[in-house]
């Protein structure tokens, strides 16, 4: 029971592997994949209340990890649905694509449960390596070649970040003589003023910064987002962020009051992420690139929430990242639908979307207004609670800088909405989402509004989950 979601994913991978050996058409493969995704989601729900330790204490199953696993499985299911027929991926490799997707999710699920350095490393690598392959799997029939560049970039940056992380882990082991996170934390708790401790912690965090795309480990984002197929980007932009946040909370939550140096460094990273992401997003023409830069900015906000070192702050960060993932999924759902042959979507390609497909235009508008932090959507509530928490801790300057960022960000979100609603479609064809896509988009819209209007239950729930790891 404790290991059910992971086993389900492994099983799903095996089934897809079998499928890949035979010859099936794209629709069947997709239906199988969605069915398996739903089964995995069901498995996470079943093992929702499971608790315990596995593998000699290297693997912790508690409410916190199970909540994240459910979220990961849920958003994976949405990614599978919005991917439709994987327009951007050659039909020959569809089963393999799904196989790697499942393996990557398996890595992420293992990551949120890992409480030991080696298992963290293994899980992180499993999730990354699968995606390294998924990125260049984009169809090259349209003579698109930049997916190769994107794949290489993703790999090189990923390996660099892993290198940092391993180096930091070696320090951790050297300083404490243990790879068990709990032991390390206890030993660290009194030594935060010591440079070696700070450096080792920063280096380990680098691995997760890479996943979440926080400054200065964000450089891969724009090119990979642009180069990967729309479906892959939808995955990269959402699911790994959940796991990354989960691990960041696990690690940073143990920095105690003495860790002023490290807090300051992290605060700087948060603010730098916001400014870098928002300012760069202003000039983008490719929607995916723009969302990539906006993701960097949002990661800064999440980090700001975590840095309050309060349970409410962690809960807010959790709430924020969930909201972010839902809003991002809504945007990518539209992108995948608008792109007719799997090509990249420029901002002007969205012209007159409100006439070509009112539901898609509305979904995109709500998603983007939400990301911009306009009430009554979840993005506003998340930002508001994060800023409240940060100001309570006395980060006045950071809060003001973050507020200024909100004002900068609205411009580029608005420029997309403007094209969607205020331009004429001209020659562009209709966009007709399938029934399943429409239902999914309505479902995402409802979550965005409900989480924004009555955040209480979600935050309470997040607090309960966070409390289990404190």
């Amino acid at each position, binding site marked *: 029971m404790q290991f059910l979601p992971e086993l389900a994913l492994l099983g799903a991978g095996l089934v897809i592997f079998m499928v890949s050996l035979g010859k099936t058409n794209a629709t069947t493969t997709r239906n199988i994949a969605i069915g398996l995704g739903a089964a995995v989601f069901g498995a996470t729900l079943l093992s929702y209340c499971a608790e315990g330790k596995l593998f000699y204490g290297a693997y912790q199953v508690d409410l916190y990890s199970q909540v994240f696993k459910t979220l990961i499985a849920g958003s994976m299911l949405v990614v599978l649905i919005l991917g439709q027929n994987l327009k951007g991926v050659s039909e020959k490799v569809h089963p393999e694509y799904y196989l790697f997707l499942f393996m990557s999710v398996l890595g992420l699920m293992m990551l949120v449960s890992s409480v030991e350095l080696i298992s963290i490393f293994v899980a992180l690598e499993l999730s990354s390596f699968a995606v390294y392959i998924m990125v260049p799997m984009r169809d090259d029939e349209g003579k698109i070649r930049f997916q190769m560049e994107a794949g290489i970039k993703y790999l090189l940056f990923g390996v660099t970040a892993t290198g940092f992380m391993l180096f930091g882990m070696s320090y951790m082991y050297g300083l404490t003589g243990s790879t068990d996170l709990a032991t390390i934390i206890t030993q660290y708790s009194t030594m935060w003023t010591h440079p070696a401790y700070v450096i080792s912690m920063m280096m380990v965090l680098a691995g997760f910064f890479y996943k979440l795309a926080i400054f200065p480990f964000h450089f891969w984002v724009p090119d990979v987002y642009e180069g990967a197929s729309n479906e892959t980007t939808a995955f990269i932009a959402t699911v790994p962020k959940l796991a990354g946040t989960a691990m960041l909370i696990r690690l940073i939550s143990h920095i105690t009051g003495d860790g002023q140096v490290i807090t300051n460094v992290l605060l700087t990273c948060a603010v730098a992420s916001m400014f870098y992401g928002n300012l760069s997003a202003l000039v983008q023409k490719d929607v995916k690139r723009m969302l990539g830069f906006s993701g960097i900015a949002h990661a800064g906000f999440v980090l700001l929430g975590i840095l309050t070192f309060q349970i*409410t702050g962690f809960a807010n960060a959790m709430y924020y990242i969930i909201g972010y993932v839902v809003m991002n999924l809504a945007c990518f759902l539209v992108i995948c639908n608008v792109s007719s042959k799997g090509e990249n979507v420029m901002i002007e390609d969205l012209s007159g979307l*409100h006439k070509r497909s009112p539901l898609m235009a509305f979904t995109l508008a709500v998603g983007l*207004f939400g990301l911009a932090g*306009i*009430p*009554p959507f979840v993005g*506003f509530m998340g930002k*508001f*609670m994060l*800023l*409240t928490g940060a*100001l*309570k801790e006395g980060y*006045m300057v950071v*809060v*003001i800088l973050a*507020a*200024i960022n*909100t*004002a900068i960000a*609205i*411009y580029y979100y*608005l*420029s997309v909405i*403007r094209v969607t*609603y*205020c*331009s004429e479609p001209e020659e562009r064809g209709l966009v007709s989402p399938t029934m399943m896509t429409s239902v999914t988009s309505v479902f995402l819209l409802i979550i965005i509004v409900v989480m924004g209007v*009555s*955040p*209480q239950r979600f*935050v*309470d729930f997040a*607090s309960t989950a966070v409390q289990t790891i404190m």
Partner: protein
Amino acid sequence: MDQLLFNQQYPHILSTLIFLPLAGAMLLLFVRNESFARYWALGVTIVTAIISIPLLSAFDSGTSKFQFVEKVTWIKSLNIDYVIGIDGISILLIMLTTLIMPLCVLASWTYIKTRVQAFMVCLMIMETAMLGVFCALDFVLFYVLWEAMLIPMYMLIGIWGGPRKIYASVKFFLYTLAGSVMLLVAIIWLYINNGYSFFIPDMMWQNYSSTAQIFLFLAFFLAFAIKVPMFPFHTWLPAAHVEAPTAGSVILASVLLKMGTYGFLRFAIPITPEATMLLAEPILWLSIAGIMYGGFTALAQNDMKKLIAYSSVGHMGFVTLGIFVLNTRGVEGAILQMINHGITTGALFLCIGMIYERTHSRELSDAMGLGKYMPIYATFLAFFSLSSFGFPGTNSFVGELLIIAGTFEHSTVLALACIPGAVLAAAYMLRMLQKIIWGDTNNPDQSKMVDLNVREIVTLAPFLFFVFWIGLGAQPFLDIIHVSVENLLNNYHGFTNQAVAITELIIH
């Protein structure tokens, strides 16, 4: 909680007012029939207007407490409540909003030809947000509605607007949002320094340090001055007004601009009295600058909508002038003038919209010499124009007179400085009126123009009724606001006298 009065007779009247249009909008989302959408929107807004009438009859104008209060816990962990209530400062604005919305629907009856349902949905969501802003007694609730309002308004301008709609709508959105982000920081600061409460009445008249007050005031000022808009933050207004469809212009002029001045009265003065005292003088001069600037610019316009838009800058300058002289006459005049401006400028925008529907031009030169062929229209326009520059017997006269009287009480120099503004208003309004009614020797051929139909007369008649009611018998309106204004000013003067005494004590 002693500032709140619950009303037994109408326990949920405000919530009904706020959520009825929203519910109407939600239902309309599923309707495809355009003509049904029009009647439905009209019905919903009329019902809302009717429901709002008991507010007046049951309103106790003998107390400055908040009335018709409703309170429900919203977000418990942050101590955010859904708490609403109205006092003398907000009640007239609520009435203005509910009464003007059916007229906006009527004005869009034939003006809006595409995507009617979506337009009506936006109008009704706007009504919900606007009413909510004036009722909210919780700062987060206020901020949520204040920001949420941007989306439907953006859509109104951006989708149904004129040729430069994209520029105008984006500018409107960016200005307002950029202005209010610091307001958010101020709100959170107040929350933390007020025992973790967002309840607005609890934030008033507290002893925040002078530095904090000045920063808070600047945050408020940026948000509200952009909304008013005060010179030099006004540049979004002409663009937005000119490009918006008629109903959008009316909502913008009649209600949205009032939120800025309402914000000054509700937040800036009670929460930061000391900073208000320190910074009132420059704001007064900014108001004068706005009056003069609006007047001179309006005088030079050939686009009628732009002319009215710049006249709004001038009129709102009078309102801020009245607020920051901080005496009874000034503030009462300012509140009355807020209502007057809503009535008169709203009506003028409707008049321009009616010409636009016929000629598809907003140029003054294309509308010359209409008087001969559209006598009913000319009559309405004449009265509204007279009202706009404060002709005795019309509503604006009462408001402007009170404001100028209040300004004289405060400082003669200031009062003398604003007099040319009143003259300018006469100049630009009469210029427009003269051209539209008579024109000159080279009038375009207007013989094909048809006069107002019944729907248009019905749309304009209520405005005219209020122009004269307030103009000839303003006392009932002043009675409603009097106690709240007195209370505000008493508190303010009590507070500032104390502050001055302390300062003197330190100096001597």
